């Protein structure tokens, strides 16, 4: 964490390498979060790019308070996703198109995991926006309850309750084959 704080300080002091390192460190995580929220590869790509450009433009306003830089990026990503839906409300969040899996590893297992992810994204498309958000932050982005609460602007207790209702609903939809 200390290293990241130092990187962020350097980026704020206009160090191009530090910017680039932060980008490389977090690009995939942000993409995965956005892909889960939007369920559409092309849109996920556009929004992910916008997140980092936005972060570049506003990094001087970031203040280090012990919360990971990634949580700040997720906050930007969350706002970008909300704006995206506002502008394209008719785009279904369930139209997954060709999300990629890495080339290394067992191809059959990877294909199965990809299908599983697509099934989850489709099922998540039937959750409420807040439920989808908590699933993405907790189980796709691996944020802690405290970090998730920060990003969502809710109390930790509220996030725990939401997490419960989201998992219950997701389980029901998937069990019913409603994907």
């Amino acid at each position, binding site marked *: 964490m200390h290293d990241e704080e130092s990187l962020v*300080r350097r980026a*704020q*002091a*206009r160090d*191009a390498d530090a*910017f*680039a390192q932060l*980008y*490389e460190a977090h*690009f*995939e995580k942000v*993409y995965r979060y956005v*892909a889960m929220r939007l369920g559409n*590869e092309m849109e*996920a*790509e*556009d929004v*992910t*790019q*916008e997140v*980092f*450009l*936005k972060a*570049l*433009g*506003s*990094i*001087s*306003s*970031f*203040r280090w*308070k012990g919360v990971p830089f990634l949580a*700040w990026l997720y*906050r*930007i990503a969350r706002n970008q996703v909300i*704006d995206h839906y506002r*502008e394209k409300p008719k785009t279904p969040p369930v139209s997954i198109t060709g*999300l*990629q*899996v*890495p080339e290394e590893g067992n191809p059959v297992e990877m294909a199965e*995991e*990809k299908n*599983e*992810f697509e099934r*989850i994204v489709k099922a998540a498309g039937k959750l409420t926006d807040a439920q989808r958000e908590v699933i993405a932050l*907790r*189980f*796709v982005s*691996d944020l802690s*309850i405290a970090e998730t609460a920060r990003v969502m602007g809710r109390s930790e207790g509220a996030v*725990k*309750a939401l*997490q*419960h209702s989201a*998992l*219950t609903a*997701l*389980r029901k939809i*998937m069990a019913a084959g409603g994907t």
Partner: protein
Amino acid sequence: MKQSDRFNEILNECLEELARGQSIEACLEKHPEQAESLRPLLETALVTRRASSTIRPRADFRERARLQFRAAIRSSLTAREPRRFHLRFGMAVAVALTLVVLICGVSTMAAASNSMPDQPLYPVKLASEQAKIALASSPIKKAEVYVRLADLRVDEIVYVAVKGDPRWVDAVAQRLKEHLDMVAALAATMTNGKMAAPADSGAFRPSAAPTARGSETRDRLKVIVQQRAERNTEKLKETVSRVPLTVRPSLNRTIDQTSAGYLRALRSIERPPERDER
């Protein structure tokens, strides 16, 4: 503590343990009375976490995004360099441009400026465009250059589409997309028209306060992009009926991509950068 709150706590405790590599069974053993309710929820969380960890961005997107981001970093930092650097850099580019003109000849340069993608002088046209971008001294000026270059690309797309070659349409459309992405990238590095305030090393301070002049600059860019977006999208749409059927899919894709590109640029211009609200 209410019973539902208690369950939420136990569920969260188990989820944290799963994230640390513990098994579902180990958690259920600790809470046998809730095991039946916990198991399906923990399984769902585990499946979601495992499946999502395999998802990666496409390699070509990753590379394109990386290049664009690095270009945005360079633009952002270059614009913050002292004026003297700009003058020196501008002088160097001017000398290089002069040499290009001398080597190619003024008439060649003039002819190149009107050349189309399938013509021999087109690379000269692209090279002179790069010089124009390099000479632009601020993000707003660079953005304006990219907006003008986007106009040229649209004209070229119309030309190659009418000639009937979808490969050329796709190639020029990709360049057009890159120009519009750069407008978005450059706009994202501005706070209400001016560059974001440089942070002093180690000092954390909020973004520069919006200025009336900065806001005007942003507004001016917005108007220019809005006008071009409407005009160029319309121009491409009008071309569809005039091109061979084989080109139409490419052209329709280009129209969608161009509309989305202008929209991204406008969105980036309209929205001030994120502020840390924490």
